[in-house]
Structure formats: structure tokens, C-alpha cells
């Protein structure tokens, strides 16, 4: 299983290098406030990585916020109890 994963990873790295080499020409982006020119392959990779990271972050934030809400709810439920001297 691990070997298959490593082979798939190597395939994608090789594909990335090939696509990057084939699309080395610069492409310009107009963000209204700035204009940027980057290689086509690099732009593609940056967008993919950014999207992946943002997705992961959103999922993690959603879960941790839900856990905190549950803890706060439990604290509210626990009422008065006698003090253990």
C-alpha cells in the first residue's frame, strides 16, 4: 500500500515537472489593484496548494468550534453541588 502511494506521488511530481517545463512561459494576471506575471505552471501549482490548505483549515476550524460549543453547553448544565471539604 505504501509503495503504491509513493509511486503515485512520484508520478505526480514528474507530471508537475513536465507540465512546468512545457508551460514555462509567463502569464500575466490582473488583480485590479496589481498586475502580476508568473510562469503558467507555478500559478497552477500555487492555486492548487492554496485551495487545498484553505479547505483543510475550514474543516479543522469547523470541528474545533463545534467541540468548544459542546463544552460550554456541558458547563452550563452542571449546576450547584456541595463543596467537598
Amino acid at each position: 500500500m505504501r509503495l503504491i502511494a509513493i509511486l503515485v506521488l512520484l508520478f505526480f511530481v514528474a507530471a508537475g515537472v513536465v507540465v512546468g517545463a512545457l508551460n514555462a512561459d509567463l502569464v500575466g494576471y490582473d488583480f485590479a489593484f496589481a498586475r502580476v506575471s508568473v510562469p503558467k505552471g507555478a500559478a497552477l501549482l500555487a492555486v492548487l496548494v492554496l485551495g487545498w490548505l484553505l479547505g483543510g483549515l475550514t474543516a479543522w476550524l469547523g470541528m474545533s468550534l463545534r467541540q468548544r460549543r459542546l463544552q460550554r453547553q456541558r458547563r452550563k448544565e452542571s449546576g450547584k453541588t456541595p463543596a467537598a471539604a
Partner: protein
Amino acid sequence: MMPWYALLPLAAIAFALGWWASRRRNARRSGAAVNELSSDYFRGLNYLLNEEQDKAIEVFLRLAEYNRDTVETHLALGNLFRRRGEVDRAIRLHQHLVSRPNLSEPTKTVALLELGEDYMRAGLLDRAEALFSDLVAMNAHAPSALRHLIAIYQHERDWNKAIEHARRLEVMTGEEEAPMIAQFYCELAERSRQHGARIEARDYLDQAFRCQPDCVRAWMLTGRLRSEEGQHAEAVQAYEAAIGADIAFVPEILPPLLNSYASSQQMDRAERFLRELLEHYHGISPVLALTRLYQQRDGQRAAVAFLTAQLRQRPSVRGLMELLEATMDRIEGEARENFLILRDLTRKLLEGQAMYRCSRCGFGAKAHHWQCPSCKSWSTIRPIHGVANE
């Protein structure tokens, strides 16, 4: 120039993939944790069942470190520490549990009950009493807390409070606690008798009879009170009623009863009563009492003849000892030496024997106790019936 939003669909696909991967990773991690937790839990349980408490504690300690929110693990650990006699550790653990802010009310009361038991085991009865009283006031685990409170008051010999709480327990659970309450009244009566407050003692005995009309101890105390007041005929009636209430206590009741017969000069009645008792009771005590009675009235020969006949029907070491003592004077020479050896041997055999045993926990005792020193049950210690005992 290529507009930047041309890359947006690709970014959306990457976002979705990243979100899915993160969720999957979290789910797998929590699943692994649960699996590890439950396998550890069952391993601990297995050690407990195999009476390997040290290993169980090790596993549960690791579990508690892994997940600090697991209340049940902490409770199990606390129980184990207490059972092993490490009361200070149990107290610390339960105190820590009680001080947790996010604990639900039912769990907190369970932890408080456990803490109270720790305090009891450590001998901190005042703290335990305060905790159990709080639990009763909150009506949380009230029956258990009341039982512990009654145990504390019994230990402190505060019989009035013990009665009050036993009555509350009776109302709460619907279970009959009257025999136990009767014993508490008997304790109060005994204390009053010792202080010379006879009227007060009689009042307490009336209360005991109201709780349990056939309370043997109350009848015996009544007999003793009457006997001390010189009312020997009434004492005889009370002692006979005590035997009627529970025939098992014959060895305890016979000595004062015979004294009362002698003081009220009712030896014919004594003989009739003992003869009748022989038919219902299969121990040796009435036989020995009758032997002594015949010895005084009809002489040694008649007494020995009666004892020998009885010993054939109910063999007993105590009876044999009595027979040896009675016939020793008539034997001389080498036979006497052999008889002396036999007598010493019999005496040693009797010295090591427990005469009473608790019918609930099996505790053996040489003297009679109304409350078992081991399991604290009332009226469960009874004479042992056997060749070497009663």
C-alpha cells in the same frame, strides 16, 4: 492577458479536496483513539476479574492520562485505590473529580458518595458525615448515604441519631429496618441500666418491643433488669420468653435463667422447663444444666447416669469433659492417670474452638456479640452446633 478568475474552478476543486482530506484525517484519528481506549479498558477489566489489581491500576492510570475527561475511569481507579488501602490517593483522585467545573450533577454526586466512603475508610468520620448529610439533603443517592450515616453513628455509639436515620431509611426505601432499630433501643437500654436509670431503660425496652415484639435481646435485658430488682419470678418469665423468641440463644440465656430459678426457688419448674427444652433443642447446654441440677438434688450417681445416657444420644466434647470431671473422684491408680491425660486433652481441644459464628460473614468468635465485629450485622452471631461446640 488571462483573467485571474479563470483559475477559480481549479481552486474550488482543490478546496473541496483539502476539506475532505482534513475531515477524513480527523475521523480516523478519533476512531483510532476510541479503539485504543476500549481495548485498554477491556484489558483493565480483565485484570480486575483476574484479581490482578496492580496491573489493573497501571492500565487505568494510563487510560486516565490519555483522556482526562473519562470520569468512569477515574471512579474505577479511586475504588481500586480504596480497596487496596491507598486511601489518601483515592481521596485526592475523588477530590480532583469533584472540583471539575464541567462535571454533570449525577456524576458529581457519585464522586461525592465515593469521597465520603474514602473519608470513612480513612477514619475521617466528621468529614464523611458532613458529605453524606449533604447528599441526603440534596436527595442524591440518599439511601446509600443514609446507610453510611447509620454506620457512622453506630461506630460513634450515637444510638439516637442512628435510630432517626434508620427510620428515614425505612420511609425512603420501604424496607423493614425494625430489627436493627430494636437493637439500637437495646443498646440505649443497656447504657441506661449501667448508669442505674432503670425507668429509662424500661422505656427503651418498650420501644424495642414495639419495633420487634420477639426481640431476644430485649427479653434478656428485661430478665436482667427484673433480676437486679429482686423480681426473680418475673425474670424467669422474661428469660423463658427469650428462649421462646429464638431457641438458638439457649447457651446465652440458660445461666441467668438457672440463677433466677434458684433465687425464686422454682427448681421443679426449672426441671420441667429443661426437660421440655431437651425435646426441641439439640445442643448440650440443657443436658449440662440438668446434670448439675440432678447432682445437687439426687447426688453424683444419678447425675452421671443421666449424662451418660444423654451423651449416647448427642455426643459432645463439652459433655465428655463434664463426665470426666464427675467421675474423676471414683477412679484410682493407672486409670486415673489416663483420665487426667484425657481431661487435659479435652480441655485443650475446647480452648481452641470458636463457640459462635456469624451466619452472614462466617466470622468466628469465642464470646457472643450482638453486632458482628466483622460485617457489622446485628443478631447474626449464633452458637455453633457440633461435637466440639454446642
